[in-house]
């Protein structure tokens, strides 16, 4: 394997939410084993050394689980590879001499804070509107009192693996949040614990989603294609079904 490579970056720089942004060009010496974010660390060291401002970007766990990292790379949220986050991308997915364009998530409901960092609090507000089971601490029965068939538990788990990154929104031309909302609604409507609030939950979450300015779903499927956790499009079908049935019941 080659041990060094050079890439040209076009990075979105934007001082703050109000400022006009623009692309800046940089070139970085890297190597194939470096992660994409480590390549950005190298760039930032270089910028600091040259007395310039480093690029602001969000990240924390660097292992694909916290959902904080969020770069659109050559037009793809989380980059060219499927089923991984930006922080799991390695430079071996690129070639020596490549030009790579890096932008923040683009959506009205995710305003830019600076450079590549955006504000995703709208997702928290959607969860606060209904993405829970109302059970106060101390109210629970013994965990094995309610049996849940393994396939149902597994399906609920799969939907629950959403990391709340927002790539689905960024990938969608309408900036729709249906995949994210569908994942939570699917998880909780599959489980016995979620039944009591099943209908009020879905209506509240969809209302909040609309209020936040996320777009409508036109079934292009770009969200599921870019989702790092492989949340399937079927959660959107479930969401639609749950919503319709709740509405029919006058919720």
């Amino acid at each position: 394997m080659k041990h060094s490579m050079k890439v040209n970056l076009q990075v979105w720089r934007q001082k703050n939410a109000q400022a006009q942004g623009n692309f800046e060009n940089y070139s970085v010496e890297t190597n194939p084993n470096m992660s994409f974010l480590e390549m950005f660390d190298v760039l930032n060291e270089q910028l600091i050394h040259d007395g310039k401002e480093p690029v602001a970007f969000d990240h924390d766990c660097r292992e694909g689980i916290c959902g904080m990292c969020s770069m659109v790379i050559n037009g793809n949220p989380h980059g060219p590879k499927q089923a991984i986050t930006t922080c799991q991308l390695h430079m071996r997915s690129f070639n020596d001499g490549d030009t790579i364009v890096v932008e923040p998530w683009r959506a009205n409901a995710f305003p830019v804070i600076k450079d590549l960092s955006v504000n995703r609090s709208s997702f928290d507000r959607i969860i606060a509107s209904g993405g829970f089971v109302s059970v106060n601490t101390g109210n629970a029965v013994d965990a094995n009192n309610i049996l849940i068939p393994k396939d149902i538990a597994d399906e609920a788990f799969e939907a629950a693996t959403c990391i709340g990154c927002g790539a689905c929104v960024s990938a969608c031309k309408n900036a729709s949040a249906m995949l994210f909302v569908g994942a939570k609604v699917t998880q909780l409507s599959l489980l016995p614990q979620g039944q009591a609030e099943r209908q009020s939950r879905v209506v509240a979450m969809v209302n909040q989603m609309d209020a936040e300015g996320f777009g409508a779903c036109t079934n292009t499927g770009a969200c599921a294609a870019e989702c790092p956790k492989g949340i399937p499009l079927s959660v959107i079908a479930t969401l639609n079904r749950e919503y319709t049935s709740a509405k029919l019941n006058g919720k």
Partner: protein
Amino acid sequence: MKLESKIPEGPISEKWTKFKSMAPLVNPANKRHIEIIVVGTGLAGASAAASLAEMGYKVSAFCFQDSPRRAHSIAAQGGINAAKNYQNDGDSVFRLFYDTIKGGDYRAREGNVHRLAEVSTSIIDQCVAQGVPFAREYGGTLSNRSFGGTQVQRTFYAAGQTGQQLLLGAYSALERQVGLGNVKMHNRHEMVEVVTIEGKARGIIARNLVTGKLERFFSHAVLLCTGGYGNVFYLSTNAMGSNVTAAWKAHKAGAYFGNPCFTQIHPTCIPVSGHYQSKLTLMSESLRNDGRIWVPKKQNDDRHPNNIPEDERDYYLERRYPAFGNLVPRDIASRAAKERCDGGYGVGPSKMAVYLDFKYNMMQKYGRTEASKHNIENPDDATLLRLGQEVVKEKYGNLFDMYKQITDEDPYEVPMRIYPAVHYTMGGLWVDYNLMTTVPGLYALGEANFSDHGANRLGASALMQGLADGYFVIPLTIGSYLSGEIHTKAIPTSHEAFEAAENRANERIQNFLNIKGTRSVESYHRELGLIMWNKCGMARNEKGLNEAIAEIRALREDFYKNVRVPGTDKEFNPELDKAGRVADFLELGELMCIDALNRNESCGGHFREEYQTEDGEALRDDENYKNVFAWEHTENNKWELHKEELIYENIKIQQRSYK
């Protein structure tokens, strides 16, 4: 000041029950006027904030990430312990209590640990009720697996994403309270000062990381749930932002720091591959259920692992510890790996790695079972392997994918290469039975406190402790203090104590920006990490620790002369955030070395080379060190040592053995 642990009187199994029935309470009408600040929204913080808000307190919660759901707890992989005894394998509250005390090498408090074991069962009930999708058996019951240092199956899990699922449960409970208006959530805020008035914690100063503004917040009590400080080593399995700042500011405001040098080095992590590396990735301990650890019997053996025949492999854990084998506690497994690599038996490009191999269990354990389920008679090796791989994929798929993503090697085909890495800090703010620090009204929960794991934490016990503290302990113990505060009116944040605290924070920030040196913050962090890893890591000795102290002091001095922090304090500026955190690590590192130097024994993860048995095991000195070291910060980087004697009335302390 005398350290009072405030453990209730009476037999061990009745202490918590008695406490619960006697604890002073705050009535619902008064709760509405009492404000509580919760810093941190990991398992400890989110569960505490949600539960306290449900009870009727006015809660404000803080985290430095963009959402409470991103706290580092999200990354926990393997599982959470609870003494449910669902497997009918002889588990009990006492056994979990015993395992935890023994696992911690007899350096934890009996009273706290017993309470932890008692409430463990309610945690699982609560999480399931919230819709946490734990792994289940075909009959619909919950599934369990084993973790190190135990001989029962008491670990509940959700694939390799247990922390994520538990945190999302706690986060949803928290967001529910946000929606109801009972919790005010402050994302992208970093606590930079604890405010004390007349000796009591009365609020905090937090920096709004988006605008850079310093903001003041009053409360009747402050809960620090700010996680561990493993990042003092620069490279660790912790998230990049994990830091000691909140705990350190509390320490400087009067809270004693307990056992700072007790660090857990986790045996199974992906080895370091280059100098640019920013973090290390854990491969969950649950893998040791099915992976066997080995190195070649020959030194410097360069053959491909698949070409090394069975009888030329040294399964050194199975050889040295036949009773627990690959499931010995972490400190022991880590030292054993280091011993092999130092001896020249290591593998991989750096020779600082050992193999974690799944082939045997894939074929013999899972392959055979599946073959017989599918009525395949006399299956050949390829069939066994294929069938076994499918089972392993279901159990650990995400971990295997993660490994492949990072190393570009397929662990279904070749054994994983692993090496120990910094993972968890047992040390933390000293707290009493109520989880209160030495500052009245200031509490520490979760990994941020020192309390339950002694000198070594058992796997799957941190999640248990975080949720125990937040859901079941603090809601009750905080009443003892707050019942005396019902007449305290909200203090306006124009009070001089808030003014002074904000000024202190501001001066520090201006200082960082004005140094205008040449070196990046990152470069100091990396250098500190190397000193810590080499001299205060898996093995420590007097000479190395003295050197480390001198080196850290020199590095700190250099930092304040030559660091370069770009940008301003009036904007989103991650470099400035990092400067504050690294500055605190540069002080904490020194205290950790001092602590390690003063503890003239080996215990758990603290291995002083001068104190070992003939076969290289940790040699405790119970006569002199059966105690907690609690450090008081007296003036700038000067400390005074206080000791809390540990009393064992229910467990007979002995030389820890897993042979």
